[in-house]
């Protein structure tokens, strides 16, 4: 066991000293996170939480196939294993130490990804996620190490392992919901996906991160990955070759096919006894609803105007309807009003006026002072369709803001909200209506909602313009 630990520590040192390895281990996953969170999720924190699992799975796949599998063949081709073979250590020590090193390297990578997702994209996070993420990471690394090492063990050359790895990688990335969400793919591809191990890892991450589901609800998927991991490592150990001159007999390659058995059984079970498409569809719909809150369209549907800041008494009106609050524990030096409202000119979309919310954020981290500007909105009873609130916003692109809707009368745990970083150009934003606003709204009474604007990010000045608030 000590030999395994010593070897693993040495492998980690080697990775830390190799620039290319550092790039692909630490920076590359962050690039993927920014692509997924920034482009696909539109920076929406809840959508980022949904897609975080895809980024983690992508990383685990890369670690298994290219980090572990490719390295195993490279060590054999270079002749490094030949020297280890002369020492009193076994092939199991080599396999186990590589697996352990691969796992230990991934822990800080996941920490880095989490930090980026939380600090840059304000991904919602609970500390209870940490053991679940670590657990799924362990299972994922274990399972895909098995696949990667099995492929390495049946490949004779670097060229051969790269072909196999790329085939497996692309199939898993495009057909398991890692790059393209499964619910928008044809049904037959969704059926194929039930036979791919990465599908289960992605869906479990999404269930935990975006829907706070317990892992215990996914026992069959977990067992499949665990069995695959054991089977893969067993095959890799049995077919381990120290030297490049040792060629694997063709019949031994059939061993690798046994790794498909648990996956085939799982796919069969899912198609016959479960309905994974429905589950994938629910979480996807929820994510899309969150993303679609930001439409960025200048031609939103014509709705009922609620506030356009155009009246002659607009300055007077906003002092009655808009308020600013901050954390109760605000230090004395920040006891001045942290935000102000002003009417500015011109407004958005050819109008004359808009509302300017500006102030100072007192700090971040411990002692952070939350500033929240809130405006009361009244949805008239005569409004026939009410899907949500649409408005125009503008800022300087320097910090994100969270916009949320809540009911004036009721405390709601789940408020529709979006988080985005407005640019210096006016853009249209939508927040979907909370279910309570539609279900509870009596037909003969107005619905009273509050729109809140919370600047996020580091301390300093903040400034955001808002205009043309209306229903859609």
């Amino acid at each position, binding site marked *: 066991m*000590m*030999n395994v630990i*010593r*070897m693993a520590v*040495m492998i980690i*040192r*080697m990775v830390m*000293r*190799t620039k290319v390895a550092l790039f692909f281990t630490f920076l590359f996953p962050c690039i993927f996170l920014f692509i997924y969170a920034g482009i696909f999720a539109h920076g929406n924190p809840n959508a980022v939480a949904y897609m975080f699992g895809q980024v983690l799975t992508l990383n685990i796949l890369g670690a298994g196939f290219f980090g572990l599998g490719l390295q195993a063949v490279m060590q054999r081709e*270079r*002749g*490094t294993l*030949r*020297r280890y*073979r*002369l*020492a*009193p*250590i*076994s092939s199991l020590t080599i396999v186990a130490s590589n697996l352990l090193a691969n796992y230990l390297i991934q822990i800080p990578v996941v920490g880095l990804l989490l930090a980026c997702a939380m600090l840059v994209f304000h991904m919602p996070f609970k500390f209870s996620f940490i053991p679940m993420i670590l657990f799924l990471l362990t299972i994922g690394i274990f399972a895909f190490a098995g696949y990667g090492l099995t492929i390495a063990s049946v490949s004779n050359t670097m060229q051969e392992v790269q072909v196999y790895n790329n085939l497996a990688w692309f199939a898993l990335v495009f057909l398991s919901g890692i790059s393209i969400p499964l619910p928008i793919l044809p049904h037959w591809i969704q059926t194929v996906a039930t036979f791919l191990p990465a599908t289960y890892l992605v869906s479990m991450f999404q269930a935990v991160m975006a829907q706070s589901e317990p892992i215990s609800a996914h026992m069959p998927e977990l067992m499949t990955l665990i069995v695959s991991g054991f089977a893969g490592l067993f095959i890799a150990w049995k077919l381990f070759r*120290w030297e490049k001159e040792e060629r694997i007999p063709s019949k031994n390659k059939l061993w690798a096919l046994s790794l498909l058995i648990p996956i085939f059984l799982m796919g069969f079970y899912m198609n016959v006894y479960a309905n994974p498409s429905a589950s994938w569809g629910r979480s996807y719909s929820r994510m899309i609803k969150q993303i679609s809150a930001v439409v960025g369209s200048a031609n939103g549907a014509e709705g009922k105007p609620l506030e356009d800041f155009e009246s002659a008494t607009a300055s007077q009106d906003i002092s009655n309807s808009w308020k600013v609050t901050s954390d109760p524990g605000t230090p004395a030096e920040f006891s001045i009003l942290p935000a102000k409202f002003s009417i500015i000119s011109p407004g958005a979309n050819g109008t004359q006026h808009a509302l300017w919310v500006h102030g100072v954020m007192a700090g971040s981290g411990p002692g952070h002072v939350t500033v929240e500007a809130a405006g009361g909105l009244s949805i008239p009873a005569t409004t026939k369709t009410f899907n949500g609130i649409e408005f125009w916003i503008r800022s300087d692109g320097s910090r994100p803001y969270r916009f949320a809707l809540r009911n004036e009368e009721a405390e709601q745990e789940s408020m529709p909200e979006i988080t985005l970083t407005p640019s210096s150009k006016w853009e249209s934003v939508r927040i979907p209506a909370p279910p309570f606003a539609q279900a509870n709204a009596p037909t003969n009474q107005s619905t009273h909602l509050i729109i809140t604007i919370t600047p996020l990010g580091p301390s300093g000045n903040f400034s955001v313009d808002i205009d043309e608030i209306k229903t859609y």
Partner: protein
Amino acid sequence: MQANQNESLVRAENLHKRYGNVQALRGISFEIKKGEVFGLLGPNGAGKTTTIEILVGLRQPDEGSVQVCGLDPARESNELKQRIGAALQATVLPDKMSVEEALRLFASFYKQHVPIESLLEDFGLAEKRRAFFDTLSGGQKQRLALALALVNNPELVLLDEPTVGLDAMLRRDIYAIIERFRSEGRTVLLTTHYIEEAERLCDHVAIIDQGRVVAMGTPRELIDRSGKGTRLEVRLAKSVPVDRLKQIDAVLDCHETDGIYMVHAQPATQAIVGLIHFLETDKNTLLDLHIAQPSLEDVFVEMTGRKLSE
């Protein structure tokens, strides 16, 4: 290190090994006594590396038996590895592993090991202790390979072509290290295709060719056993037929290459007197004469009909 000279540390009997259609070993047998430097001399492809790989337990013979340090390398591999040290051809370590890290890592695999500091000093690697493997020169890499082979203070050191690819100066460095092994009383098995290496370093040599031992003994015994006698390299003013030179007393054989007559004679003095007499009679002039004792190369040529380098 006291050595009991009669104790046999390695015994290989009738080793056969085939790779596909290639018969690498065809019944190799030899024995290595404790405390001696034993050389396996032969051209590339003779079966030297296969033999050494069987001895360290990396391969199993198709036929024959092996005992190393009283152990069976195939069945008692781990125990054997604790007691032997080996440097195979072209030792490769991870690029970013430093010299000291490599020694410490490999030392940690053994139940006992020599102090790393003394290894760094003994092999001239102290100044390179923090250098990564990919920055070392060929000679430094080879010295590290030898240091790694000694990290567990082994009873038997097996070195597969330790000087291949090194220039003459670096080769002499390695010779000095192997000579130190011998002075310490270590048992060494060395494979080589350099005659100079075998003659200088080995107490006993087995000449192998095409998977067979063609001759075995001390270098002196092998040379003395050679029927070719002393070699006279003769250059004459006028060419003469080789057959006439062969008729001179004590000349065993003669052939001509590029105007130089290679005359094998026993005893040499009688042949030289006869040669001078022949030249006076023939009105010829001796331009140059070199007298050389036969070498292992001559023995190899005599045994196989080919040169080692072929």
